[in-house]
């Protein structure tokens, strides 16, 4: 049961969730329900006030560095450097991740930004900036991808690109947790839906799914236990 508060307000008050390897799950909830907080906890950006979570066996607090190797986070904020070119931004990410520069160039081609690779990103549209963020995720190729409103600012091609990244991650035995407001777009790839309300998580029945959760897959892409004290 993972818990987190900001000041006196408990945003998450006992979240318990297990995600299987090779599975994509979706998470919905009202504004301020704690969806983004949960993702930020799982990718080690913030620490829980109570409880614990493990990502493929690595504890998000005790083995944060190992978790960072396993997890990729696509934030709604692009997090790129305006005065660097698209290629420089992705190559910088590749260096920080210990990946070869060729991987950065391939990622740029995949997200359709190769024709503007030498341009500074200051003049990029919000959709292009999102593609650049996605390129960074492609370079990392993590086992668990956490996507916070991944379809924002994307055109139809971009939406399909996001879904392709989810499918590929799941196909290689990884997992994905997708936070959305509208289940429609992610329904093409998500196998199970959860809802977050009043700081607690529960399965969401009746939401459309297309993705397939593998039968008998090893348990626990992440699991949490503990208690709010």
């Amino acid at each position, binding site marked *: 049961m993972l818990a987190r508060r900001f000041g006196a307000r408990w945003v998450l008050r006992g979240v318990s969730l297990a995600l299987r390897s090779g599975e994509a799950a979706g998470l919905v909830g009202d504004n301020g329900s704690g969806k983004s907080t949960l993702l930020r906890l799982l990718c080690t950006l913030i620490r829980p006030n109570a409880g614990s979570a493990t990502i493929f066996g690595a504890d998000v607090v005790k083995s944060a560095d190992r978790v*960072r190797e396993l997890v990729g986070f696509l934030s709604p904020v692009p*997090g790129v*450097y305006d*005065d660097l070119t698209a290629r420089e931004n992705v190559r910088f*990410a590749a260096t920080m991740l210990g990946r070869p520069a060729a991987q950065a160039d391939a990622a740029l081609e995949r997200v359709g930004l190769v024709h503007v690779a030498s341009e500074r990103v200051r003049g990029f549209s919000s959709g292009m900036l999102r593609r650049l963020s996605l390129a960074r995720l492609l370079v990392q190729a993590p086992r668990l991808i956490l996507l916070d409103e991944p379809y924002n600012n994307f055109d139809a091609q971009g939406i399909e690109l996001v879904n392709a990244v989810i499918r590929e991650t799941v196909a290689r035995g990884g997992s994905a947790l997708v936070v959305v407001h509208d289940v429609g777009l992610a329904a093409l790839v998500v196998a199970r839906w959860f809802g977050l309300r009043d700081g607690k998580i529960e399965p969401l029945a009746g939401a459309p799914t297309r993705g397939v959760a593998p039968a008998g897959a090893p348990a626990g892409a992440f699991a949490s236990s503990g208690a709010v004290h």
Partner: protein
Amino acid sequence: MAFRDEWARARAVAWKDLTTERRSKAGFNSVAALAVTILVLFGFALGPDAEAARAAAPGALWLSALFAGVLAFNRSYQVELDGGALEPLLLYPGARRSLFAGKLMANFVFVALLMAIVIVVSLVLFHVAVPAAWPTLLFVVLLGTVGLVTLGTFYAAMASRSRAREVLLPLLLFPMLVPVLLAAMQATKAILDGDIMHEAGAWISLLVAFDLIFLIATFFTFDYVIEA
């Protein structure tokens, strides 16, 4: 993570910071303008008395570097915060000290360039002749810059997580910099005066000691200050 990987990451951060700075130009120009303005104001305040100006030169030099440096240190993390780039930076695996090392290298280059301008302006404005022991003076400037940049980069990281970062940084930094600035000013003054009393060596030893202590302490504690 191997040292080679950490070094590659540190170099990447330094390259990224310096490239961003070189292309935007706004940061260095405004910081250099502030440093020169401070020196000019000191010059006006001291008046036409050349002897008084010469005596005040070491203090004016290091104080202008301090005030201008604070702007530079704040800016080095502002670049990350503006575009939301701090979070991806913190999510890269590997030791956080490589981020610190990268920021430290970039800030060192930035402040060293600033010091070159400050020294030239100080020599002209305060009627100071280039001393015979100018290599020693450069060594003192190097040591003082290392101390200033080490603490500035460290405390700017700490302040970057606060909304009141512009106010917080000087409050945290200035008291900690007192020993470095005191030693740097006294060593500079001794060298400009011809080091008749042979006191520069003692102040330089003190500067080396402070630099080593601060470098080691900041590298070992950076992980804790950059955490949310």
